[in-house]
């Protein structure tokens, strides 16, 4: 029952986007996020969405997977939409669309609501383009290398990345373990599904105690195994996968730079945004 949870949403196919350097992908994602905030109109969003759609085609990732990434955020999206819809109270003349009891919806409010929900949705879609095309290991490699200049001020970039990879590596293992323990306790008559909140929290004890015991045991074993293979932190450690920038990475950077250029132009052309 726990096996249906997928953490990390890497979509394992080979494509031009998959092969890009993870460092470049992380930086470009940050650039895309900035671009989302630069946009002032729905036209800008349309341009961005088209760009991401094209990128998803290049990445061999079905676009609906990226839309699916929005599902966990649906409540936040709806809340954002409603709050902006009802509580927009800009000064001056307001064109009222609906007025009923204490509810007033203005044109500006509707515009704002659509605009901010779109911004939120696009932020998620932009980042999921990266997480769908970059394996967790590549991601932590990329983060390590991007953060490594901070080592000068004693920032533990390598340790951080190592912890991240280990955590990621053990998520499926621990999930499997949790599933097994849960079943074992159910075979002893444990009930994880019924009862009120307190009862249910209490029912988790027979699951969590063995799970923690086993996590600590595994951690101890792993530390021992790493030490037995002479692991002593990041200093002087070479890597198996050496990341190299290629001209493909350059193309990707140029593409995103052009996109941001277009968005800035569009922003300058319509300083007040397009009428909805």
């Amino acid at each position, binding site marked *: 029952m726990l*096996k249906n949870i997928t953490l990390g949403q890497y979509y394992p196919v080979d494509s031009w986007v998959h092969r890009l350097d993870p460092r470049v992908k992380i930086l470009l994602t940050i650039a895309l996020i900035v671009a989302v905030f630069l946009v002032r109109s729905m036209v800008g969003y349309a341009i961005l969405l088209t760009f991401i759609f094209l990128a998803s085609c290049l990445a061999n990732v079905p676009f609906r997977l990226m839309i699916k990434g929005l599902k966990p955020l649906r409540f936040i999206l709806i809340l954002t939409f409603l709050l902006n819809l009802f509580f927009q109270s800009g000064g001056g003349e307001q064109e009222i669309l609906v007025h009923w009891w204490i509810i007033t919806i203005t044109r500006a409010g509707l515009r704002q609501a659509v605009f901010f929900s779109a911004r939120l949705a696009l932020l998620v879609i932009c980042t999921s383009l990266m997480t769908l095309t970059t394996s967790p290991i590549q991601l932590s490699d990329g983060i390590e290398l991007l953060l490594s200049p901070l080592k000068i001020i004693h920032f533990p970039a390598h340790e951080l990345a190592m912890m991240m990879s280990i955590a990621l590596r053990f998520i499926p293992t621990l999930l499997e373990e949790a599933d097994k*323990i849960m079943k*074992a*306790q159910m*075979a002893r*008559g444990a009930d994880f599904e019924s009862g009120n909140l307190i009862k249910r929290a209490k029912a988790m004890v*027979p699951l969590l105690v*063995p799970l923690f*015991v*086993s996590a600590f045991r595994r951690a101890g074993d792993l530390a021992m195994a790493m030490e037995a293979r002479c692991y002593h932190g990041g200093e002087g450690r070479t890597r198996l996968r050496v990341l190299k920038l290629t001209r493909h990475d350059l193309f990707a950077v140029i593409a995103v730079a052009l996109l941001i250029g277009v968005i800035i132009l569009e922003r300058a052309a319509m300083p007040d945004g397009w009428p909805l």
Partner: protein
Amino acid sequence: MSIQLKNLTHVYSGGTAFESVALHDISFEIRDGDFLALVGHTGCGKSTLVQHLNGLLKPTSGQVLVDGEDLNGEHVDRRKLRMRIGLVFQYPEYQLFEETVAKDIAFGPKNLGLSAAEIEERVRTAMAQVHLNYDKYARRSPFELSGGQMRRVAIAGVLAMQPKTLILDEPTAGLDPHGRDRILGIVRELHQSGTTVVMVSHSMDDVARLATRVVVLAHGSLLADGTPREIFRQREMMEEAGLGVPEASRLVQALRARGLDLPDDLYTQDELYDHLLRLWKEANPC
């Protein structure tokens, strides 16, 4: 109580790219008083199968009938049923969680909603069944025991529910020979005292010593079902399933190839010993 499997099929992650058929059209019956050994190569679906026997997994198609009643029917209280059919998982010691051995064993009976006196009684009985001294171990933390002792505590945790049928998934995995004999002795005693036992095992020698019936799985399908004698004489089939036969059977084959007059269906050390003794006496009449 009989458990009957009817055309049981289980598919993992059905409808996705990761779809895999774990069990395919399995039918057999576990009768009262059986000591049924479930054998098969790693990954052949044994563990998946035993989880169907008490309703932890639902078949993709087919039925599990307990006393003629569908285990996955709408009106069946699966929790009640799970207590009549005890399941001991692989490495059961990893399910221990309480502060003391007694409390951990009491977890099952407590879920049954029994009185404190009854629970205490059951804990004592279960500990005696797994040869753990109550006065010595009941108040100790299960986490400071040895691996073999922890496993016995975990088995006692299932026995405390007093199941009519006990299913054990590789109860001896990872134990030293002494610990293994101990667990197998406990299982044998349970069977002799009237519990129906289903044991998943990799060791054909253990199966030869204990089982009254053997069910062989290969690649998710039922390969053979019969008494150990019927199964172990089919040496080629067992080799193909990646299992082999007990040491005694192998020795019989080798001796027969050298011309010794032995029946081909011997499979335990004791009967082989008897036959060899008879041959020796015939050859050396005093």
